[in-house]
């Protein structure tokens, strides 16, 4: 322990003596780690959003198409679907998009009947009471975009053909963790939603179907298609697979984005592999000449490389965190995920897989340290006089 403390102190001194080169190497490593980690953080955050959203998606969503366009579903169809074996519950839903001029974007309006799976935690204010009219709960991002808080009122004009303007009091906002699902969501009473969206009584937008087991999905889908002419059934499992495919496609782009980082890492490694400067070689020779053993030289070198590598990697992870979760990954998010055009903007919720991040740091730092030991080992195993003469 005493030996390691002394060698660590020597390594710190060496770090300071070669601060220019070490700082350059640490910055290079930090950039590489930041790029890797930013992509990792982005991917994790997106997967978490998708997973959080998928948890609340019904096993089947039954919609209807007429002449290739979405059409309303008769509420009576719910009873027929509920009679299909394997179907646990059927929830008629009223929802749709409403253009909101103040933010120049569409808002998703959902009518609450009290039976549907509502988004999770309301963080500010409260949830809607059954049948409560003239009130709404908003996604946090939507509330931000509209500049409203709990207790404020908003006025919304209904879609063409719908009832007149509705004034709704904001009674709560949803948690950021469900941002992908709730960012542009406005939940109001069934009556208010129908008025805003122009959905007549006796019809709903779709039916949310819960199954006894997901394995029933294919059979239930076939039966629903026979029961309701023009039915389009969205299967949760298929939806998940579609998400997975989309993410896989994006992962191809991520890999492409990683190539420059990999190239930079290889360049750094090459520099370490071949790059003992004349002064460094001479220093190793002096250490050997004054009686240091090979393991002493390598240990000091290991400490020095480890300090540089982990300092660089730590800074890289911090930069990635700030870049992704504070700055919302400008450039990368828009280029890779394409949601930067969504209104209101989606705020990524920090999702950090500590084990994965540590593995990434180790994956970058450990090879860097190991590669740095190669020229040091070559110099340290020479006779001291040859190392002193720079013959390493």
């Amino acid at each position, binding site marked *: 322990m*005493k*030996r390691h403390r*002394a060698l660590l102190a020597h390594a710190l001194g060496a770090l300071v*003596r070669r601060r220019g080169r070490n700082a350059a190497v640490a910055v290079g490593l930090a950039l590489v780690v930041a790029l890797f980690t930013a992509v990792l953080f982005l991917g994790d955050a997106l997967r978490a959003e998708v997973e959080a959203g998928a948890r609340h998606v019904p096993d089947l969503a039954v919609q209807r198409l007429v002449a290739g366009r979405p059409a309303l579903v008769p509420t009576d169809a719910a009873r027929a679907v509920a009679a299909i074996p394997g179907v646990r519950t059927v929830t008629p839903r009223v929802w749709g998009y409403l253009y909101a001029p103040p933010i120049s974007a569409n808002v998703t309006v959902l009518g609450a009947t009290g039976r549907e799976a509502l988004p999770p935690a309301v963080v500010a204010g409260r949830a809607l009471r059954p049948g409560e009219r003239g009130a709404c709960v908003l996604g946090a991002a939507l509330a931000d975009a509209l500049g409203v808080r709990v207790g404020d009122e908003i006025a919304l004009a209904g879609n063409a053909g719908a009832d007149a303007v509705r004034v709704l009091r904001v009674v709560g906002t949803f948690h950021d963790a469900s941002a992908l699902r709730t960012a542009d969501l406005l939940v109001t009473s069934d009556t208010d939603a129908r008025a805003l969206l122009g959905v007549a009584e006796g019809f709903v937008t779709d039916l949310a179907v819960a199954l006894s087991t997901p394995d029933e999905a294919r059979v239930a889908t076939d039966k629903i298609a026979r029961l309701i002419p023009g039915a389009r059934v969205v299967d949760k499992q298929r939806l998940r697979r579609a998400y997975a495919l989309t993410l896989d496609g994006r992962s191809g782009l991520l890999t492409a984005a990683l190539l420059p980082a990999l190239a930079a890492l290889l360049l750094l490694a090459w520099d370490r592999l071949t790059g003992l400067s004349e002064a460094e070689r001479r220093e190793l020779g*002096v250490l050997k000449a*004054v009686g240091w053993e*090979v393991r*002493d030289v390598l240990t000091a070198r290991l400490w020095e490389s480890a300090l540089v590598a982990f300092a660089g990697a730590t800074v890289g992870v911090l930069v990635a965190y700030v870049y992704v979760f504070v700055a919302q990954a400008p450039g990368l998010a828009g280029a890779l995920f394409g949601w930067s055009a969504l209104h209101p903007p989606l705020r990524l919720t920090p999702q950090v897989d500590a084990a994965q991040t540590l593995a990434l740091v180790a994956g970058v730092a450990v090879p860097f340290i190991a590669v740095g030991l190669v020229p040091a080992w070559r110099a340290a195993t020479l006779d*001291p006089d040859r190392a002193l003469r720079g013959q390493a």
Partner: protein
Amino acid sequence: MTRAPSDAAARPAIDARALCKRYDDGVRRREVVSDVTLAVAPGTLSVLRGPSGSGKTTLLGLLGGMIAPTSGEVSVCGEPLSRLRDHHRARARRRLVGFVFQDLALLPGMSLTENVLLPLVPDGGATPAQRAYAEALLARFELGALADARVERLSGGERQRGALARALVCAPAVLLLDEPTAHLDGARVRDVIALLAALRDEGRTIVATTHDPRLADDPRIDRVLDLADGRLVGDAPRGPATPD
């Protein structure tokens, strides 16, 4: 000379037998040191003299375990350095041999004290006693006020004494110096010889390479070994303390 023969004199401080060192660069083979057999008595001040390229520095490196011989053996204070594995040899060298290089080999960017204490780092750093000893050495060599100065700011003479202090910090029995008077003016040469003689009088065994007659011809030198083309061609003991 005030030294008296001791029991240790019975065993040479440095005992080299049939030492050879060849370098093979793939194109040609050069024998830099050829069949050198040599015994250096403890507490003596010897000089290895010879022209440039005669193999003095290589022989000094072989004697101090700094260079592995191609053949032959060398022992220091009874420790068979040439037979030891690298890590044992490094440890024995640290304990037994102090080495002053011709270019001094001080590390720039470090203070004089840090340089002097460098050999003690692998043992966990200097103990309070070792630190006090290092300070005493620096004071003795008139470097006390420069202890915290970075070595690149020191003069040539100060750096040389600093290198000597580093060579002595582990209190080795044997001190080897490569051209200690090179590039020094007359007064400085006299200082260096006086210092070496004083260290010898304290019981240390000292071997220095030189092609400087001011050192080789000084009456305080106990023995002059002449080297030419890697071979020992002359051995001139001068004082009563020489073993032969």
